[in-house]
């Protein structure tokens, strides 16, 4: 499994990649593997201002449904349009084409409160 060191992580298995005051958010390689084949990414929070840990959508695998939690506060700008037709990109490329939302970050310094790659991998025991 792959956990890029430049990302920040949450204990709910999301990752976030900060680019100035915007950020990309998705789920980790560990999460996609645990879930199995992703068949639907249901996100209807575009345009919403959400706080940290609020639910921004749902990811559905063949056997399971999981809520998606926002790593830090912000406004959901965009849902990855590729996932409508190809939700399995979350499985095949979780940190690349499988990103889920683009976020306008309320306070970029908030990422400092998230997990580093080292802390996340320790959490999941890999």
């Amino acid at each position, binding site marked *: 499994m792959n956990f890029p060191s430049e990302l920040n992580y949450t204990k709910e298995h999301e990752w976030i990649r900060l680019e100035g005051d915007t950020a990309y958010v998705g789920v980790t390689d560990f999460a996609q593997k645990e879930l*199995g084949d992703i068949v*639907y990414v*249901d996100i209807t929070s575009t345009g919403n201002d959400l706080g940290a840990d609020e639910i921004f959508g*749902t990811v*559905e*695998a*063949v*056997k399971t449904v999981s809520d998606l939690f926002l790593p830090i506060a912000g406004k959901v700008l965009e849902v990855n349009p590729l996932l409508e037709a190809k939700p399995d990109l979350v499985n095949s490329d979780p940190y690349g084409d499988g990103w889920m939302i683009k976020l306008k970050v309320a306070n970029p310094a908030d990422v400092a409160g998230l997990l580093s790659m080292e802390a996340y991998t320790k959490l999941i025991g890999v």
Partner: protein
Amino acid sequence: MELKKVVLNDLHAALGAKMVSFAGFNMPVRYSSDIEEHKCVREAVGVFDVSHMGEFSVKGPGALDLIQRIVSNDAAKLFDGKIQYACFPNETGGIVDDLLVYKIAEEDYMLVVNAGNIDKDWAWVNKFNTTGVKLENLSDQISLFAVQGPKAVEVIQQLTTVDVKAMEYYTFTTATFAGIDNVIVSATGYTGAGGFEIYVPNKDAEKAWKAIFEAGAAYGIKPIGLGARDTLRLEKGYCLYGNDIDDTTSPIEAGLGWVTKFTKKFTNSDALLKQKEAGVSRKLIGFKMIERGIPRSHYEIVDAQGNKIGEVTSGTQSPMLGIGVGMGYVKPEFAAIGAEIFIQIRDKQLKAEVVKFPFV
């Protein structure tokens, strides 16, 4: 409670299976991908280790009479080598379990029950054994492999001299299989893909498994987890005990009238006959999503006005159809084929249509 393990537990782990707790057993839920495994069974051949299932021997004078008193189907219709699907109705209108009844010989039967119900069923059968029929719980002695898919017959044929291609659905034979004596080769399964279920003594489980995979190599045989087992059975509309049927659902409500024969008396048969004649207050239906969404167990089923009319009991996105399909109970007025219903999925009420089983 400590999880029980099937004989080949370590082999599944070595194959990379994700193991989960299911019905008190540590079971492989997925080896690679639920969808790949599902398609492998629909299109070629796959093998499930379903050794967690329970087997009871019912033997000796009074065996048929005992079975007739506790199962819904008419076991008197069985001949040697024939299998019936049935349920144990309870005394309060529900179902103790669903099962297969194998007739081995006169007054010699095997009942195959769900893993999660072994203890409950064993107590149930014993409770009604008032005539001293010889009962034996063989569940911890038998391993069971389901070899399923359109290529299963080619695989199994290499391992036995019995003409398995000639075997009719729901028949079985006791044969030498992969050099192992007294193996039950049964033309049954829970996938609707065709194939066989192979009952072997635990000591020969590994030998049988390996022989099946060697014989299947040329056909792309793969091990298949419980995840795909569930989506395969759901595409065919087969009930899963604990989801679609349970202690509170009647066989009539569940559409199991075809295995509920009022040609004889059995547990609660008078009340079930009355229910059949008077009509049920809810019916198990199959539905497919018209709007995009995936139904799941316990989601509400509502009408166009948003009034609750029932509840989903099983649901998934069909790997073969690529759309959401499900089963659930609704009020009878919404149960007609083609009826429009809605599934409450999170904050949305999404349109679905009642359809006939099977979905695929």
